[in-house]
């Protein structure tokens, strides 16, 4: 019997030596694995049928893994990716020692904890505490060592109140929490992680990700199997791809993931678009952008999301169907599983840029508070440009369990750009070309596990619109393009800024998509929505941010810009020119048809350091903004007609908004914004008299002419 044991699959003699080299934790040499084919019985006779069994017709053996050679060094994080059925789980099972290779050798130095199926081996009738001992025993721990980590295990699982109840009373989430907690505290040298991050609630998932980050920092060896390429990319030092049981290693993690992404491009809910240097892969609601074979998006790619009643619905969850496929375009429709909403995305590569028309097809009225597009880019991108703001991305640390907001939403800004040193990777530029006017760009750093720079275009639907009516809802048309180089981005943003900026003494005013931001040197005077206008026509409010503004032109000192809105038959025109210590704004409405206005105003939103307001007739403080405040609040109760309204604050220049005395009379009011906006507003407001409306015939009308002047006090 000894001979029988040794002749089958005689291992190469050096297998032991190879594994013995220091630093090598797992060594897999020439491993092949065949599975006996298991057929469910189609007849009552059971497996294979009696006559087959008697006839010695043995079922064929199916190769699952072939020629696998792999070593995992101590402290390394290895990712294994591949399609379903490519042998990933079998490879993990071999590492875990759950099964043996048909030929070849697997050598493991040290204790392994597999997080393959957390809580496997829990006995439902035993209490949580008893199961901790049992489960830790399965992971090779003695009772005495379990005693030492019992408290941390219970603490981490967050199940202290339930720990003495039988685990059959636990929810599946609690089960997993306890299992994960035991596994990470068993202090093994090697962790095998198989998609565990996809279970449990949000908070526990974050905790898990942080814990795995910690384990990695502690120098534990981790083997990670996942379909979430983002996590794989973020966590793993090395990635291997399994393909029909064979292993492919393209060197760097990035290269292997790239290869895999391109390769799965032929599957059904996946489409590859290519034009010139640009390639785009649409895969189950996720877009990956390649430029000259290099991926410019990080593994989480570009995706969309909708928030309904506090729940996130990511485009990755949707069931996608691709039609009208051509080499440069595709129409993707993705039905969200939990909302009566279908994403409708027309994606095309035109002129070297990726064009995305994003809309929602709403089947039944449903509540949606937020819609967004998120572009995840690799951490090589270090600089960002958003309107006339710019900055750098700070490094991402293991403490970052949630994305960090770097540049707050910028309403009206239509263009955002990220760049890397030496232009590797080349700068990316995302432009909003059309769509819902309230979409605002912001910039974020991703969390540690998903290390990425996030360019985010979010739309907070106001309460009045948050119940989407059945039909098509346009989110926006976006264009993603590769800019030639950082120098050109710098230049262009600077040119843009310069063209949109006028100077008066120490003060600058910059026009940006329907608002005018005023600075004293570097010190911002205005905030959030800045100096803007608003009018009410046909019971709809139209903010100047929502107007589609054209290019800015200059005539001497004067900055001129015109824009149109679908809500108004005609165009808006603004003229901004410097006056002494301030700026004068003219607002002109050029109507092609008659229009009835109910009200209009010109407002200046100041930073919340402003504390006092005053008109010639009344004055008062700006009270603190209550956190419950969702709406703007008028602070004056009469807001009489007056010549000006001014605001002041400690150490701040006084700001005065004054309509031209020769023009119309305005009422003056001071307001606090909603809590989220954190700004103080001084406003010149025109409300109609007895007639209740302002009828305006077709033609040219000057709605406002007035100044904002800034005066240093003391």
């Amino acid at each position: 019997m000894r001979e029988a044991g040794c002749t089958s699959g005689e291992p190469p003699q050096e297998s032991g030596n190879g594994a013995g080299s220091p630093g090598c934790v797992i060594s897999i040499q020439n491993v092949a694995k065949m599975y006996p084919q298991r057929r469910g019985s189609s007849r009552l006779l059971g497996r294979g049928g009696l006559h087959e069994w008697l006839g010695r017709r043995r079922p064929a053996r199916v190769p699952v893994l072939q020629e696998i050679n792999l070593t995992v060094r101590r402290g390394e994080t290895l990712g294994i990716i591949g399609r379903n059925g490519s042998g990933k789980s079998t490879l993990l099972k071999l590492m875990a020692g759950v099964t043996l290779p048909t030929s070849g050798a697997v050598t493991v130095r040290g204790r392994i904890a597999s997080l393959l199926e957390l809580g496997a081996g829990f006995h439902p009738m035993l209490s949580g505490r008893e199961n901790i001992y049992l489960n830790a025993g399965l992971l090779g721990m003695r009772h005495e060592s379990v005693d030492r980590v019992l408290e941390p295990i219970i603490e981490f699982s967050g199940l202290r109140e339930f720990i003495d109840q039988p685990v059959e009373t636990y929810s599946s989430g609690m089960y997993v929490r306890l299992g994960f907690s035991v596994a990470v505290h068993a202090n093994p040298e090697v962790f095998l992680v198989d998609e565990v991050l996809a279970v449990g609630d949000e908070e526990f998932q974050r905790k898990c990700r942080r814990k795995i980050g910690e384990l990695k920092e502690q120098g534990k060896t981790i083997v990670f199997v996942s379909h979430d390429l983002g996590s794989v990319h973020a966590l793993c030092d090395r990635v291997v791809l399994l393909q029909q049981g064979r292993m492919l290693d393209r060197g760097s993690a990035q290269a292997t993931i790239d290869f895999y992404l391109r390769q799965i491009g032929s599957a059904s809910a996946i489409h590859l678009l290519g034009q010139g240097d640009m390639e785009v892969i649409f895969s189950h609601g996720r877009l990956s952008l390649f430029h000259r074979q290099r991926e410019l998006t990080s593994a989480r790619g570009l995706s969309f999301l909708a928030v309904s009643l506090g729940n996130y619905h990511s485009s990755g969850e949707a069931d996608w169907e691709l039609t009208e496929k051509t080499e440069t375009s595709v129409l993707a429709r993705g039905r969200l599983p939990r909302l009566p909403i279908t994403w409708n995305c027309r994606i095309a590569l035109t002129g070297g840029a990726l064009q995305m028309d994003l809309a929602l097809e709403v089947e039944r009225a449903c509540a949606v508070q937020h819609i967004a597009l998120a572009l995840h880019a690799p951490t090589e991108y270090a600089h960002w440009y958003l309107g006339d703001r710019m900055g750098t991305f700070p490094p991402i640390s293991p403490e970052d369990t949630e994305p960090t907001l770097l540049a707050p939403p910028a309403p009206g800004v239509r263009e955002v750009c990220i760049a890397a040193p030496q232009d590797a990777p080349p700068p990316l530029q995302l432009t909003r070309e059309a769509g819902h006017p309230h979409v605002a760009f912001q910039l974020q750093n991703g969390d540690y596990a998903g290390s990425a720079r996030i360019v985010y275009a979010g739309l907070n639907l106001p309460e009045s619109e948050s119940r989407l009516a059945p039909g098509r809802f346009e989110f926006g048309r976006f264009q993603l393009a590769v800019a030639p180089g950082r120098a050109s981005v710098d230049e262009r943003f600077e040119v843009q800024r310069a063209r949109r900026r006028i100077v008066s003494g120490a003060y600058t005013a910059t026009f940006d998509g329907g608002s005018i931001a005023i600075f004293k040197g570097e010190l911002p005077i205005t905030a959030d929505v800045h100096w803007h206008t608003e009018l009410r026509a046909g019971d709809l409010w139209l903010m100047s941010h929502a107007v589609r503004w054209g290019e800015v032109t200059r005539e001497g000192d004067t900055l001129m810009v015109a824009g149109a809105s679908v809500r108004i038959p005609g165009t808006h025109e603004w003229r901004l020119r410097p006056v002494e210590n301030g700026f004068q704004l003219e607002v002109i409405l050029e109507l092609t048809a008659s229009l009835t206005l109910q009200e209009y105003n010109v407002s200046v939103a100041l930073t919340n350091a402003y504390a006092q307001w005053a008109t010639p007739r009344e004055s008062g403080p700006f009270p603190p903004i209550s956190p419950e405040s969702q709406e703007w609040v008028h602070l004056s109760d009469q807001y009489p007609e007056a010549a000006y309204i001014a605001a002041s604050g400690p150490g701040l220049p006084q700001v005065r908004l004054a309509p031209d005395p020769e023009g119309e009379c305005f009422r003056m009011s001071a307001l606090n914004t909603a809590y989220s906006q954190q700004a103080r507003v001084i406003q010149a407001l025109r409300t109609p008299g007895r007639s209740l409306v302002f009828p305006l015939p077709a033609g040219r009308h000057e709605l406002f002419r007035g100044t904002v002047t800034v005066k240093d006090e003391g």
Partner: protein
Amino acid sequence: MSGYVYESAVQRQPWRVIRELARARHLLLDLVWKDLRARYRYTVLGFFWAVAQPVALMVLLTFIFTVVFPGRLDAVAGAPQRDFAVMILCGLVFWQFLATALSAATRSVVDNRTLVNKVHFAREVLPLAAVLYPLVNLALGVVVLVVVHLARGGEAGLGLLWLAPLFVIELALATGLGLLCACGQVYYQDVGYLVDIGLLFGFYASPVFYPLEWILNSGAVPELVRALYLANPMAGLLSAYREILFAQQVPAPSIWLWPALCSLLLLLAGLWLFRRCAPTFSDRL
């Protein structure tokens, strides 16, 4: 040195079982404890149920043989006149250990498939734990047996301690058969049903509720059948237990030598086969 080498030839070496079991001894005790805790957790009477079954059967069988067929008792010549109820209980207690252990061991690997599929450990602990936990039932059964024996006017002395070495033979038998059947069950789940039938058959074909002498001294039993009957190791073992209980002495080696040999062979065969097959159980579960 905590390295594991997963490689067909090494894992399948039969003698590795000793090292692996030594390493897994805590786990084995945990699993036994788990089975015991879980078994009577939601019962009011707890371990009472462990002895309730053999006692109930004893009462039933004693009733049948002393009231329903009273003549049958004396019908066979040469059977020693012993207390019938105690004799039945003695057979039942030790038979039930084998039946419980074997049937639990047979299904142990398949029932714990989630574990087998996910975690590496010495697979032997599963059937072993299944064989060990009925020991508690047996211990309670033996206590009840001795109490009943004394109550019926029997004698008890140090000679009873001979039950222990004899029981080791039965334990080895249960372990060996358990390992073999557990292994078979993984490949062909038909084995579980076969074991059930075999145990039912064995209940009648072993001297559980009648003395061995009924078969030995009966002229109606053909020679071939008698030889087959005696080939059953439980036949010798159950008689040997009774010898010890009633006669307080070591039974003649002729009774227990064959069972001992059988048990040893089955145990070795079981350990060898299980070791060979265990590493790839998860491929079939």
